[in-house]
């Protein structure tokens, strides 16, 4: 359909399919409505996740990542990721190895012993990159059944999508707009706010208080804005979990009234594209999006 095609090998990762399959369901529903063709990747492992594995041994991280990419290469399809952690790992692995043929050779020596080879022929995409192509936006607009007209949404890009931009090449690193664009196409209003590009803190493993402070700052700002924010929209299962869980904990500890629901971008897209609410399992969130649903259904 577009120059990047409409057929991809779908890389699910671990957290979404094993812990939060409702996010996968929402994404698959959106893809099927829009006509993005997805091929299942059999035998892939963890991407591997960019925190521990890369920290303990970069070569293990590169080689496991290259093995996953080799599977897509065998399928002859570019990779589509739906988690920012997977996107960061697979994209970085492909860029680093693309720039360093010597290192790629070393890694392939290991891979060949288990019958894999990665040559660097395929590209790694995040689904937002694909769906913000003009053709897809147009299609999205024409297929919108329940426009998000009355909604005021805050976007959380998350770090791994946009930085470092010399590797990710996803969007402007200090003023990204791709996710806003999707939400606006579906009819919503998106807001600018000071903490928009702040980290969720999920990856700061050593000190819990770092994440709590970051979540508290962002959520407090959003709750104090003049115009009421209907939801925070994120594209990564870690960010969704971090804001959703910590928001409740912080509200209890500080007595602040923090109650903004956190949704995964495909969830809100699915609603706009007409997927039935009961198919989306939104009640699994700690902050229930009841008010938002009411607004959309009345």
């Amino acid at each position: 359909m577009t120059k990047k095609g409409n057929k991809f090998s779908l890389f699910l990762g671990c957290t979404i399919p094993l812990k939060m399959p409702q996010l996968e369901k929402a994404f698959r529903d959106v893809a099927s409505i829009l006509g993005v063709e997805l091929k299942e990747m059999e035998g892939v492992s963890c991407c591997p996740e960019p925190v521990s594995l890369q920290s303990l041994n970069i070569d293990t991280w590169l080689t496991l990542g290259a093995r996953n990419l080799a599977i897509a290469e065998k399928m002859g399809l570019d990779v589509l990721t739906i988690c920012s952690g997977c996107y960061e790992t697979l994209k970085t692995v492909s860029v680093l190895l693309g720039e360093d043929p010597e290192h790629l050779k070393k890694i392939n020596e290991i891979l060949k012993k288990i019958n894999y080879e990665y040559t660097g022929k395929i590209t790694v995409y995040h689904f937002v990159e694909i769906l913000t192509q003009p053709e897809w936006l147009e299609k999205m607009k024409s297929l919108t059944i329940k426009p998000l007209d009355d909604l005021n949404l805050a976007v959380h890009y998350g770090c791994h999508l946009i930085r470092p931009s010399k590797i990710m090449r996803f969007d402007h690193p200090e003023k990204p707009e791709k996710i806003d664009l999707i939400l606006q196409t579906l009819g919503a209003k998106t807001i600018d706010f000071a903490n928009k590009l702040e980290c969720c803190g999920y990856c700061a493993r050593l000190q819990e208080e770092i994440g709590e402070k970051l979540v508290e700052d962002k959520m407090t700002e959003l709750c104090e804005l003049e115009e009421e924010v209907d939801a925070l929209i994120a594209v990564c299962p870690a960010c969704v979990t971090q804001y959703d869980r910590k928001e409740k904990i912080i509200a209890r500890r500080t007595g602040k009234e923090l109650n903004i629901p956190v949704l995964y971008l495909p969830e809100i897209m699915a609603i706009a594209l007409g997927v039935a609410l009961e198919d989306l399992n939104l009640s699994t969130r700690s902050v229930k999006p009841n008010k938002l649903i009411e607004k959309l259904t009345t």
Partner: protein
Amino acid sequence: MSEMIKKNVNDLDLNFRYEIAKKIGAKSLLKCIQCGVCSSGCTVTEYVDLQPHRVVASCLLGLKEEVLSSKAIWTCSLCHRCTERCPKNVDYSFILALLRNMAAREGKIPKEYSSTVEVIYDNGFVVPYTEGMKKNIDRRRERMGLPEIVPPNLDDIRFIINETGLGDLIIKKEDDK
């Protein structure tokens, strides 16, 4: 480590900077001009015992032991703002990962990091996917009409972990038990 470090020049590891710079993605270390931009935008700057620009300076000066034992190399939220904004294109967040690799090789690994690797070694995924867990996950996916998971061949995953040297860390831990 905010107090002054006094060190005899003979105790500095002057080769440390090159040891880092020769690794994949780390050549940029040598270009640092100590402007401090990395530290000013760092998400965890108030929490670290050694701020980003000082970690870089310490690497360049050869303070290997101090760097590898600092908590700063592990206290990072991976936001990549340091790398994004550095005017000299120093890939600090990536260099930090290399420093963690070096510390890990000396056995200095916080448990928050080692446990994840064990889960991947046992499951191929970062989420446990065996026996009871697997049954529950599969049932939940089936109810949602999602396709069956075809997990990786664990022998392949373990082969890669062992062949790239991470296996030693896991085995070392097993021996301690």
